[in-house]
């Protein structure tokens, strides 16, 4: 809630604020979907400022445990805008992306990513 996240695709939004974490009582983590409100957007983009969108968290500064026992963490908190079915709105994704998304069946984002951590 109220977390400011960076948008790393070319859907038009720049900054987004989380309104609701769809799963999890304690909040969304790496790989979860959230509902967010667009706070800052590029002038000519697919989304406008003030719109309510679904997003997937692709980078989180909080370490996330992996099933082999190690932990992974990123430099910032970043998000990719997505529609209700889980398909990305944008056509490009910037920066590294975790392979936790494969388990969540968000394969499209993985194919667009430039590096899978």
């Amino acid at each position, binding site marked *: 809630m109220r977390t400011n996240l960076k948008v790393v695709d070319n859907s038009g939004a720049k900054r987004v604020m989380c309104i609701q974490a769809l799963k999890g009582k304690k909040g969304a983590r790496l790989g979860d979907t959230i509902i967010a409100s667009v706070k800052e957007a590029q002038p000519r983009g697919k989304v406008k400022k003030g719109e309510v969108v679904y997003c997937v968290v692709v*980078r989180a500064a909080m370490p996330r445990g992996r099933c082999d026992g190690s*932990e992974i963490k990123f430099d910032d908190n970043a998000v990719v805008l997505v529609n209700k079915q889980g398909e990305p709105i944008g056509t490009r994704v910037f920066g590294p992306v975790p392979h936790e998304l494969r388990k969540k069946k968000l394969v499209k984002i993985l194919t667009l990513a430039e590096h899978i951590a």
Partner: protein
Amino acid sequence: MRLEKCWFCSSTIYPGHGIQFVRNDCTVFKFCRSKCHKNFKMKRNPRKVRWTKKYRELHNKDLARDTVFEFERKRQRPERYDRNLVENTLKAMKKIDDIRVSRRERFWLNRMKVKKIKERKEDLKELEQGIDLVKAPLAFQEDSTLTIPNAKKMKVVITKPDEESHQMEE
């Protein structure tokens, strides 16, 4: 399962240990424990931190360039499975491990040899200069038969303990 190397100290990271940090330029840093992770966050250069492997190899404290390490390089091309190849590789791995350990030891011994020679020199010098602590200088003047013993030719006689007394105790 893959055994990784810690970015900071170059020790192996076994499964279940450590933290992976991915920077936004897609460089991945793996750390074996929080000590290395915290040093990284402090922006310390591992080449300047004395206990890391990178420092030791840079300053010739540890064996750095040897053909034994060529075996550990990561290969990009996967090999087609061949049972004989796997068997031979496993045998070779054990042997290479032994060779690597022995070469490292030899390198260390060679490095430490210099110290022994230096110590001996210093000891001789101390014997010459500090003989006053053992025998008073006046004693040398009065009795000319007393001489500073030649350290190289000095022999110490070891007296064997009485064997009879031991038998009595039984």
